[in-house]
């Protein structure tokens, strides 16, 4: 790897290695075309053909793409024109994706920022009447941390081990059955997972509503995501690494723990975080088995609890002036929480991942 010559990212202008004639667009060409396209779009708007900023941006992007590709095709030839087209498409895709996503974030931040006060984070909703501008999310934060934490503690070891089984040992009928059922599990609607826990844990076994019951439902939802993403990441580890380790006489299980897992660690963490993020926002199963509670309850094994998504859902449904504010504030807090968890996981991944890439 280290001896490989530097990739020829940009062949020098005008030079014609091996006698091939190679004409490239000058650097200023692309920005120039884009500026021209924007100008045309603005002019079009002036004539009244276009309305709205979204349309303007869209038309400008389209014109620049067409322009760049045409210029490139005439000067550089078809291959480079296709390359330019791909670049334009990828860039456009990125912008297209970013706009709505940033809009979601912006709405949440703009509507929820007012609630980011110590008061809101340290109070529960106990004794908050319909007309009170009071109350906070502390009880829900406690509930979410405990429920998601418990679910992660159960789902990640089982899920990771299952993924290792599938990727490293699999092949038999058992592996095929597990693969099949993991696929089935990804299709469980969250409310059905809640129903299952409700009828198995609460109705049949006679347990009470509790945060732990919620954690069980969340575990069912987390497991398939963890298994599938971890399996995918394990399979991406090049066989050469495994073979090198095994050839040195390292037993298989140590190869997996010391070579395969660390190599794919960052990817596995991403998968786990996606799973955590997904279940942390689940409302329906919690409504069934955690019940909801306005006061603080630290014990996830006894008594009703609340959770952040549950609180968002309920405060929104109340339809009161102050409850909408609390709903947005709670949504922002939930996103911040997940962001913090994500950041933590990234830091861990950074320190433990092999640094050769």
């Amino acid at each position, binding site marked *: 790897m280290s001896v490989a010559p530097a990739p020829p990212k940009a062949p020098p202008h005008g030079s014609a290695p091996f006698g091939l004639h190679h004409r490239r667009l000058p650097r200023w060409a692309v920005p120039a075309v884009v500026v021209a396209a924007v100008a045309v779009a603005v002019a079009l708007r002036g004539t009244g053909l276009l309305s709205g900023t979204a349309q303007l941006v869209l038309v400008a992007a389209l014109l620049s793409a067409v322009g760049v590709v045409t210029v490139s095709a005439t000067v550089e030839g078809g291959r480079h024109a296709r390359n330019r087209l791909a670049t334009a498409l990828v860039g456009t895709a990125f912008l297209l994706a970013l706009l709505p996503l940033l809009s979601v974030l912006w709405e949440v931040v703009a509507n929820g920022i007012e609630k980011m006060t110590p008061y809101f984070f*340290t*109070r*529960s*909703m*106990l*004794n*908050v*009447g*319909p*007309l*009170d501008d*009071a*109350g*906070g999310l*502390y*009880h829900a*934060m*406690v509930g979410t*941390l*405990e429920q998601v*934490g418990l679910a*992660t*503690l159960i789902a*990640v*070891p089982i899920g990771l081990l299952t993924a290792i089984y599938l990727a490293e040992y699999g092949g038999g009928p058992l592996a095929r059955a597990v693969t099949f059922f993991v696929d089935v599990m990804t299709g469980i609607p969250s409310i059905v997972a809640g129903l299952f826990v409700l009828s198995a844990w*609460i*109705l049949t076994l006679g347990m*009470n*509503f509790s945060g732990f019951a919620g954690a069980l439902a969340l575990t069912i939802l987390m497991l398939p995501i963890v298994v599938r993403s971890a399996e995918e990441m394990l399979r991406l580890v090049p066989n050469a690494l495994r073979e090198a380790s095994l050839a040195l006489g390292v037993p298989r299980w140590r190869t997996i*723990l*010391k070579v395969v*897992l*660390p190599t794919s660690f960052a990817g596995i963490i991403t998968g786990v975080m996606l799973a955590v993020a997904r279940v942390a926002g689940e409302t329906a199963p919690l*409504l069934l088995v955690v*019940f*909801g*509670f*306005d*006061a*603080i309850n*630290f014990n996830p094994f006894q008594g*009703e609890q609340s959770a952040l998504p549950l609180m968002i859902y*309920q405060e*929104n*449904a*109340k*339809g*009161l*002036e102050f409850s909408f504010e609390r709903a947005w504030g709670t949504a922002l807090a939930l996103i911040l929480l997940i962001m913090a*968890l994500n950041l*933590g*996981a990234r830091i*861990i991944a950074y320190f*433990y991942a092999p640094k050769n890439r």
Partner: protein
Amino acid sequence: MKLLKYRHFAGFALVGALALAGCGTDETTAGGSTAAPPGGDINCAEGQLRASGSSAQANAMSAWTKAYQQACQGTTINYQSVGSGAGREQFLGGQTDFAGSDAALDEEEAAQANSERCDGANAINLPMVTGPIAIAYNLPGVDELVLDAQTIAGIFSNKIKTWNDPAIAKLNPDANLPNQQIQAFHRSDESGTTENFTAYLGAAAGNAWTYEVADTWSAPGGQAAKGSEGVSSAVQQNEGAISYMEYSYAKNLGLGTPKIDTGASEPVELTPETAAKTVETAEFVGEGNDLKLEIDYATQQEGAYPIVLVTYEIVCESNNAPDKVELLKSFLGYTVSEQGQQELDKIGYAPLSEEVAQKVRQSVDAIA
């Protein structure tokens, strides 16, 4: 190595939890300025109650539990709005101490309550909250509007399509009605509000309403939105929109509500008093302490607003758990007391009429 990594995860969670554990509190209303004075109609009992059900009475419950818990420190009453059907299921399954419901128990449920939930005693329906159902519309420039049952039925079944339709114009000779499309919104979820609204149309609109009286919407046309908050914000967002919803939602968003021409000498405006008047004319159809009500939606009485929703609390008449029964009686006794019912006015509900309240009090006293 691997264990070490998980230990870090656990460490993160633990540190976070500990940091949080130190600083939270249930004290939300400093000084208790809005607290109900202790004493009054509240006779404190101790313990914990768990209840669930109708979202239509959620705000009433929230006001009541606040007042009660502030007067009786250490007692908790946890009411969650999960929907009437789910609330009845949870009550019948023995997971909750009482249910809040927009509909009384049906025969099958009553039998199940008798044989399983209440050990041979009956479950009784106690009317507790009157929720007027408002027709809310968004039509700038038209501040006053009169509608009757036939017109409402026409609008909601896609037969009357514009605001200057002759049927509407006839009822509003002075209004400046625009030639604008009507966007009628109904609830997409099953709801007691839909059931009572369609019951009103079925009883009062005659041939103009031929669709089902049910908790799911069945008439053609129109658009749907989820929940009262969904339809109310849809009306707020769309000019020319109209929908039905619990009064408190219309009130909170400041939406216009038409007067209803019931056939009485004057069109009736929606106020807590006019809604209470309709409940007064309702008939008790339950037996003994069961106070199931039948509302006369076609009422033509002067000053009675006909579209109302009465929500019940459902409890076992006797054989309640010994550690719950005192608190049940104490809390429900408070909610039906004069002081309890007065709380409702401020948040868009109507108080029960004295006659109905009197009967409910007797039934609450009989709970054992």
